[in-house]
């Protein structure tokens, strides 16, 4: 009966005979549970129906509490041979259990942070004491938690992992072919390409809430962009990397978290697109679209990765504020000549009738062209009424040599069970890019990404691109591709 409150039972008169039997009278008729307690013994409990003249025999078993400071002992009268036999049986059962469990029975020791009070004579008190100062110290604590060998080994391996450098790999192979269907024939028509990429990640915890991270990437093979010469990259793997067929340091930074871990500070060689202009459905060339126009916003105009700092304030209430700057030209001799700065505000919203959506607005300033150029943009991803479908969109506008560049993109991503297998993702997207000086690009891409295993994915891509240059025929390409991606 949930909510029933127990009240102390009232005493009723009873009689104890010389032979130890109890007689209890004046108990109203009904069903009862007869309970018998005695120090050092387990409770006896049985159902009885009153009235009755029946005699109830009660046998009490010894209550064992190993390690109890004042283990209750039965009186000599009860410590008979049967009890000794019961104890032996219990011990034998316990040995069997120990053998079955193979437990590590050495007491567990660990170091704990404790608060103590130290007076001027360096005497330590556990409680606040006049004249003693509150101090933090560390001391070993020993506890009796018996663990299995398996648990102990797992714990040791986890501890070792925390104190070593973690290495991760993200490798991808992306064969693509180009079929030109419009415009004056170019070198790319009917050519095949394959870009192989391998990122090696190194992560190490160097201090409290402080992490070192490095990403070394090797790219090999030609992507189609070298021959198609479009406004944006048809293979986003090589974005913001200067050299191919050799190792590149994509990122190397230290990140620390301060102010109750609300503010993250990242400094080192950065790829600012990892922190700004995020998009849940169009941000990751290893899992989503392959074309860079559906991974990033060209209006960001971030040509290369470089040294810089990013600050992210995230109170975990749906609002985020980000600020960052980085070197934007590798050939610059000082940071003042190539300062790229970026700010962003993000908000998690739930429009009526829709799921959650992320809305971001950014503004940037760049002096890499010897004078300041600004740009701004938005990036949003919004789950529709059905959680499996996410609509995404980007818009950007940037100052150019002549007039402004304008860019927008949009599309849909289907995930969370909306494919053949639960982990599959697929999507369609369109990107529209008009530069101020004239060239324009229209790109559409569709992909289907099979989650073959936790570490291995296979995706099929088809892109349709139109490149328009002033005074030239519009050139159109159809670009099928496959991406094999492994990460571990």
């Amino acid at each position: 009966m949930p909510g029933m409150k127990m009240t102390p039972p009232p005493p009723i008169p009873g009689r104890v005979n010389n032979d130890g039997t109890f007689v209890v009278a004046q108990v109203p008729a009904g069903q009862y549970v007869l309970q018998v307690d005695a120090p050092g013994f387990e409770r006896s409990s049985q159902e009885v129906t009153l009235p009755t003249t029946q005699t109830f025999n009660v046998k009490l078993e010894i209550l064992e509490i190993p390690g109890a400071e004042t283990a209750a002992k039965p009186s000599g009268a009860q410590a008979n041979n049967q009890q000794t036999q019961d104890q032996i049986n219990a011990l034998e059962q316990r040995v069997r259990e120990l053998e079955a469990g193979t437990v590590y029975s050495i007491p567990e020791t660990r170091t704990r942070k404790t608060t103590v009070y130290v007076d001027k004579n360096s005497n330590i008190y556990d409680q606040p004491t006049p004249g003693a100062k509150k101090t933090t110290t560390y001391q070993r604590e020993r506890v009796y938690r018996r663990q299995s060998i398996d648990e102990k080994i797992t714990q040791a391996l986890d501890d070792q992992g925390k104190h070593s450098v973690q290495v991760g790999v993200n490798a991808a192979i992306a064969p693509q072919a180009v079929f030109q269907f419009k415009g004056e024939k170019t070198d790319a028509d009917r050519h095949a390409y394959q870009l192989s990429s391998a990122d090696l990640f190194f992560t190490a915890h160097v201090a409290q809430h402080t992490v070192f991270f490095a990403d070394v990437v090797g790219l090999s093979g030609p992507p189609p962009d070298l021959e198609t010469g479009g406004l944006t990259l048809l293979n986003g793997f090589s974005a913001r990397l200067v050299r191919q067929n050799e190792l590149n340091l994509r990122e190397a930074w230290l990140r620390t978290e301060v102010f109750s871990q609300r503010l993250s500070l990242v400094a080192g060689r950065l790829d600012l697109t990892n922190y700004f202009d995020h998009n849940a459905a169009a941000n990751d060339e290893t899992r989503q679209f392959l074309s860079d126009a559906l991974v990033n916003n060209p209006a960001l105009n971030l040509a290369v990765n470089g040294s810089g700092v990013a600050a992210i304030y995230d109170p975990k209430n749906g609002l985020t504020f980000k600020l960052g700057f980085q070197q934007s030209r590798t050939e610059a001799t000082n940071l003042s000549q190539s300062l790229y700065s970026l700010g962003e505000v993000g908000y998690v919203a739930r429009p009526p009738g829709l799921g959650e959506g992320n809305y971001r607005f950014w503004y940037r300033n760049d002096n890499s062209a010897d004078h300041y150029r600004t740009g701004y943009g938005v990036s949003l991803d919004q789950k529709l009424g059905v959680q499996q479908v996410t609509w995404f969109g980007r818009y950007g506008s940037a100052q150019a040599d002549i007039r402004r560049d304008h860019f927008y993109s949009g599309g849909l991503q289907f995930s969370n069970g909306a494919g053949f297998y639960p982990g599959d993702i697929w999507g369609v997207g369109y990107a529209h890019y008009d530069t101020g000086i004239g060239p324009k690009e229209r790109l559409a891409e569709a992909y289907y990404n099979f989650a073959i295993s936790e570490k291995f994915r296979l995706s099929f891509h088809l892109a349709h691109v139109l490149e328009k240059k002033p005074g030239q025929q519009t050139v159109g390409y159809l670009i099928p591709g496959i991406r094999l991606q492994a990460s571990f």
Partner: protein
Amino acid sequence: MFKASFISKLALTIVIAGALAGSASLAQQEVKIADPTSVVMIVNRDSNDLAFMDIKTTKIIGRVFLGNNVNPHMVMMSPDGRYVVTGGTRANKAYIVDVRTLKLVKVINVDIAPEHLAFSPDSRWYYQGNPEGDSISVIDMQSLTKIKTIPGFVEPLNVTFTADGSKAYVGNYGAHWVGVVDVRRHELLKKIQIKEVPGIAKLDPDKYLGEVHGINIAMFGADGRYLYAADGDLGFVGVIDSREDKIVKTIKVGKDPWRIYMSHDGKYAITPNNGDQTISIIDLKANKVAATLEAGENMTGVNFAAGKAFVISSTSGFVYVYDMSSLRPAGRIRIGVNIQLETATTDTQDQKIYLADSTENAVVIIDAKTEKFEKITQNVGLFPWGTHIMDSKDNYCH
């Protein structure tokens, strides 16, 4: 000194106490807890005891030592408020404590590594899950004896009884099915598969032939008819119709959902997804995911109070907060640094949350409205693993 008591099924209690021989002196047993709803129970793994904290004063008013190396895992009070029980994981025993006197009154051998447990609604049956024994021990709370061990489970973690007590549903964490137990016969009746393991899994033996993250618990929605069970490896929640014991719908949630938690208003359920550090909020009327929100690492529990959900991120030291009316993130509470948080219970007024903070040997009391908290460290015990309040809607363990 023997003490005998007659306890009526109608809650009439009579106690007689007398000397063993000769003396006719009768004394009433010392009552330490008169109102079982007035305390928070705390299970301490390393001091091997149960501590009882008075809700009003936040003082520890009693403690029951269970024995060295017992390693108690989950504490629960019987619905009638008479007994508190726990399973000693390393002792392979169930421990029964009398609530009024805070005396350990019975120790019962069960199967290997008892952890989570449940009472039938009438308080008659105590089902103790034994994950390493792959069984459920059935303890009769009238005779205080184990009457049966039900075999055939695979790492049984949590048991949920139907409101009428006729059936119990058992989550098997080492498999992808929910077991249905006939409580009248204490027999496994049926196995309900949440969802077929995808055929593509043949290519991913590491995931599907490695350690299984199956079903932790099946929980009833507010209507008492449909149960919801999350499968960790599959990333799906299955909806079970308890009338026919069949799956009527599956809902895709995030990666590696730990288990499902029901909001107190019956509108939503939440799965903390440790695989991608998100939570999925399920609209129970539409049976679909209403929101997927960013969360923390190693989530061990969800509590509901003051119109919010509080999600415990064990190793980060944070409790993440979500507004359950707007289904938006509402900040996070930093409980501490370099600590480990375990599980929590909510008071019956949905105002305060009592969170076990194991590495600080503390219980953290969070005011759900203001989100301010107080740490109780005095005399709590070593390595508190879980808390429990009678009639709380958030009594769970991990």
